[in-house]
């Protein structure tokens, strides 16, 4: 039984952490306020829009609808964790190159969702990209440029990998 704080151990963007959280604290508030990783955005607050998408053990989830204590034992990736020593992630580069955003509010969620897609399916067809990305909402781009960005990144990642 835990009335007070819950001790949790987790990794965030590659770094090991141990901390205590309040049971009723939401993951999104923990990420934005305590970890100060404000790239993760809150919008609908009901698992529909996808702006708050983060990766837990590589899987896309809505951080608005998980408790912070559920991080225990997990590996958390936020948009801040994508840039490596060699600069921006190929998905980030592709979004810039192909114009995959306008206002940018949905972009962290879109890129993380796309990352989980490419991890599962490195060479998706256009239809597969559309079906998977259907989870997240963008109100600016009309989606075409987002789909282009992801297809472009998949091609880039393949040529780097090979």
């Amino acid at each position, binding site marked *: *039984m*835990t*009335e007070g704080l*819950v001790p949790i151990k987790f990794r965030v963007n590659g770094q090991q952490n141990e901390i205590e959280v*309040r*049971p*009723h*604290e*939401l993951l999104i*508030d923990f990420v934005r306020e305590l970890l100060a990783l404000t790239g993760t955005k809150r919008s609908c*607050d*009901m*698992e*529909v829009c*996808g702006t708050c*998408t983060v990766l837990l053990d590589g*899987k*896309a*989830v*809505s951080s*608005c*609808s*998980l*408790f912070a*204590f*559920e991080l225990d034992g997990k590996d958390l990736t936020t948009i801040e964790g994508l840039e490596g020593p060699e600069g921006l992630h190929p998905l980030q580069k592709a979004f810039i190159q192909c114009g995959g955003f306008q206002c940018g509010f949905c972009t962290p969620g879109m890129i993380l*969702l796309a990352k*989980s897609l490419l991890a599962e399916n490195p060479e998706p067809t256009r239809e597969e990209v559309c079906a*998977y990305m*259907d*989870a*997240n909402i963008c109100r600016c781009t009309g989606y075409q440029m987002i789909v282009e960005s992801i297809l472009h990144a998949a091609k880039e990642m393949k040529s780097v990998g090979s």
Partner: protein
Amino acid sequence: MLSPFVLHQPRSLPDALALLSEHAGDINVLAGGSELLLLLKMGLIKANHIVDIKKIPGLDRLELNSQGNSLHVGPLVTHRALEKSHLIEQHFPLLAEMERDLANVRIRNVGTLAGNLCFAEPHADPGALLAVYDAVVTLRNFEGERRLAIKDFFMDYYETALQKNELLTDIEIPKLAENFRGHYLRFCPGEWPMVTVALLTRWTGGTCGEARLGLGCVGPKPIRVTEFEEVTHGRSAEELTAKADEFGAIAARGCDPLADLWGSAEYKRQIVKNLVREGLRRQCQGRAKDD
């Protein structure tokens, strides 16, 4: 920010059941949380205790029974696990198809099938499909367990037969005989489905020996349409195809949809009729005597 609560993370099922009994009425179960958190945030449910069952081993059971004729789904099995399982793809392709379309991948990654049933959200996918499969749920409290047919589990909008001290510990889905054909059809203009239709037909040559029709989202709970099942029984594929419109209308009369943001009751009935007609015609294809 949510209201504070006492968190329990038991390591065994008896411990979880003891907690449910001790705090009955003042405790919520957390598995995936995709339904629970929505309702907590909206203030529709409130409890001073939450029991997180994710640390209990064995509750993620997903396997066929020893005879190989029934599937068992534990309360921690996510929609995504069902969607990606080779076992489900091979033996329950309709279930896999339903799971692929359910909500979005973020929700499927965390949400569980059991949780979906327990919250009895009227606009949900699994109910109609599990109804035609004649699924059976096991509800357990600290004293013992009982098994309920899915049709007796759902009671009303957001209401099930689950008692305050019980946990849904298993969903059993019987395998269909080889000569069944099935379709799961849905109309979903938004995030939640407006109408769901699950149709199974069992064939001997060109004759339909049995039909099972489940409808979801068009009333307080998922239903089977007995009148449809009776009138289609023993009919030939030609007859069913010719009268698909009429049988669709029987299905539409058998439900009780509410008018809401997505459409009037009449509109939803029309969708039911169209989907049932479509499903029936597809299932009759290639079943005519001359084929």
